[in-house]
């Protein structure tokens, strides 16, 4: 039981960065913009957050700074893909290179340093319940924030005017435009939200989960999140399941390693990537990607012009 409750707790902690980034990408993709640069955005948030917490001693400033660093990188993506109508895949891929390169360059001086990290908050009464308290109620605040974000986004996407507009520009930008919805504005904003959340995801990684900064700290999590978006069928309520599942996978591979099962470290590290491909395959075979995907995903919207 101890093993299980600590596994659940660790899965939630490891899954939280995945959750934030996946939720952000869902919003961006719902508007029709694919941000393949998630890995680069996350790693930038991770380094910036770590740096700010290191300097100020305040992890919350770090988290916020991580979010804004992600927002900054997303602004590049939005400017290129929404304003300049450039190919979304190319811009996204370059964002990955840019993010990994910049952080490798700028972050070299604080590899191995210890920054003030986010402390867990024990929820009164509930955290005293045996096992369950350990598993669910002794987390850092961002874990709770992530859980809270899911119904909030669900509500925004399904019940508000903004949500409807988001849906409209992602499905049929021409029609949305005709109805007077500012397609570019909605898309630009959605990409920024996505970047902000991915930046926070990165900062959570460096300030609450890993608690260190190393070069390329995200280790492919951005790509896993892109797969999680497809797996979740672009729905926030499903994203949380996927994120915690993959968080659990990450943790499990370390725990089994520590338990000395004789499986080598490298094989354990491979598991999340292989499982991601399998999960993606499953989603595709079941046709989820067709039913859930915004119809205009990846296509720039250029209003027809008369000369």
């Amino acid at each position, binding site marked *: 039981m101890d093993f299980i409750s600590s596994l659940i707790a660790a899965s939630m902690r490891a899954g939280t960065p995945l959750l934030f980034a996946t939720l952000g990408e869902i919003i961006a993709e719902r508007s029709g913009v694919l941000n393949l640069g998630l890995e680069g955005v996350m790693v930038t948030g991770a380094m910036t957050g770590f740096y700010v917490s290191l300097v100020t001693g305040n992890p919350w400033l770090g988290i916020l700074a991580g979010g804004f660093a992600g927002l900054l990188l997303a602004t590049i993506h939005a400017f290129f893909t929404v304003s300049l109508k*450039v190919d979304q*895949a190319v811009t996204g891929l370059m964002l990955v290179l840019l993010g990994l390169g910049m952080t490798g*360059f700028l972050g070299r001086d604080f590899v191995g340093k210890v920054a003030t990290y986010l402390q867990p908050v024990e929820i009164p009464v509930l955290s005293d319940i045996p096992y369950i308290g350990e598993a669910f109620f002794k987390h850092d605040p961002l874990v709770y924030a992530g859980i809270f974000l899911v119904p909030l986004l669900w509500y925004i996407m399904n019940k508000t005017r903004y949500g409807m507009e988001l849906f409209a520009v992602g499905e049929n930008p021409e029609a949305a435009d005709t109805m007077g919805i500012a397609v570019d504005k909605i898309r630009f904003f959605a990409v920024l939200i996505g970047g902000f959340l991915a930046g926070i995801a990165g900062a959570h990684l460096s300030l609450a989960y890993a608690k260190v900064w190393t070069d390329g700290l995200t280790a*492919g999590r951005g*790509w896993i999140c892109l797969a999680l978006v497809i797996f979740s069928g672009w729905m926030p309520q499903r994203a949380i399941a996927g994120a915690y599942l993959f968080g659990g996978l990450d943790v499990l591979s370390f725990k089994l390693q520590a338990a000395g099962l004789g499986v080598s470290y490298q094989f354990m590290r491979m598991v999340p990537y292989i499982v991601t491909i399998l999960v*993606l395959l499953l989603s595709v075979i079941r046709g989820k990607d067709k039913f859930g995907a915004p119809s205009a995903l990846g296509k720039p919207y250029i209003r027809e012009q008369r000369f």
Partner: protein
Amino acid sequence: MIRVERRLETPRHIQLLIPFVSIAASLIFVGILLMVFGINPIEAYETMIRRAFGTKFGLTELFVKTAPIILTGLAVTIPLRAGLWNIGAEGQLYMGAFAASVVALYFSVPSLLFLVLPLMALIALFGGMLWASIPAILKAKFNLNEIISTLLLNYVAIYWVEYLVYGPMRGKEVYNFPYSDLFNDYAILPRFFGTRFHIGVIIAFFIAIIIYILLTKTSYGFAVKVVGANPKAAEYAGINRKGVIISAMLIGGAIAGFAGMMEVSGLHLRLRSAVSPGYGYTGIPVALLAKGNPLAVIVAAFLFGLLYVGGSAMQTTYGIPVAIVDVFQALVVLFIIGGDFFTKYRIVFSGLRPRGV
């Protein structure tokens, strides 16, 4: 009022100007970054250029570093012409390196040792191809997004090689380093001029020319182009779209696999972790700069080869991480695609009423 208007035709001087302006702008941007770290950018760039062109060693190093980039550039270019993103050249390179190393280390029929190098090349091609076949088949059969699958497989391949050099293939006399034993002479590519310039460099150029002929002068090349430009039209024209998708990816993977053999047999002389400093990823900006033309890949690869040579010079001289090369790569491409906007559109400053409405 400012608005954007589509150009009816693109002035030629703008098209020619864009790559140069982009490279200059990236140099300025990276220069500012260097200044932040208290490094004089002019001096740093001078060091880069002097290292690459100033000595025999530097010049041959430029070729040695350009060659694998030509190959990974091709590995991205060929599928890209068929409309597919191969982000997995890095992993395919590692699998090629692994396959070649198996032959190099374990093939030991004394009378047939002259066969080792050709066999290594062949099996490296096959290794890269096999690794690329996974995303290719998943794409053709299930329409699984190849960007994500090729990328994720990179991690698997890199960990696989790491496992081998820490485990079953670790050398006897390497202390704690993640290395295999050194290859025997018969498994090492011949070198020239007393430098690291090896025969693989020349082969890389030949491969680029062969691919150029394949893509521009044969009916297969035409089929690839049609599938890339318009998959529906391809099917109406009776082109086997899935076959083209798979084969384009396989050829790309095979070439990346060969790059892996070249690195272990021409440069490292053993299998090791970190076979490549990210040449597979560099193939992406190279392919984008070359716009699908295999001969242009050679030119673009030289630019990035220069960056790698210069990058390592800057690392030894100023202690700047080689990651700065990635920043430069990303910036060049972003500036170029941003610049492309101005070839298709122009910005019009007009009165309140847009023209033509």
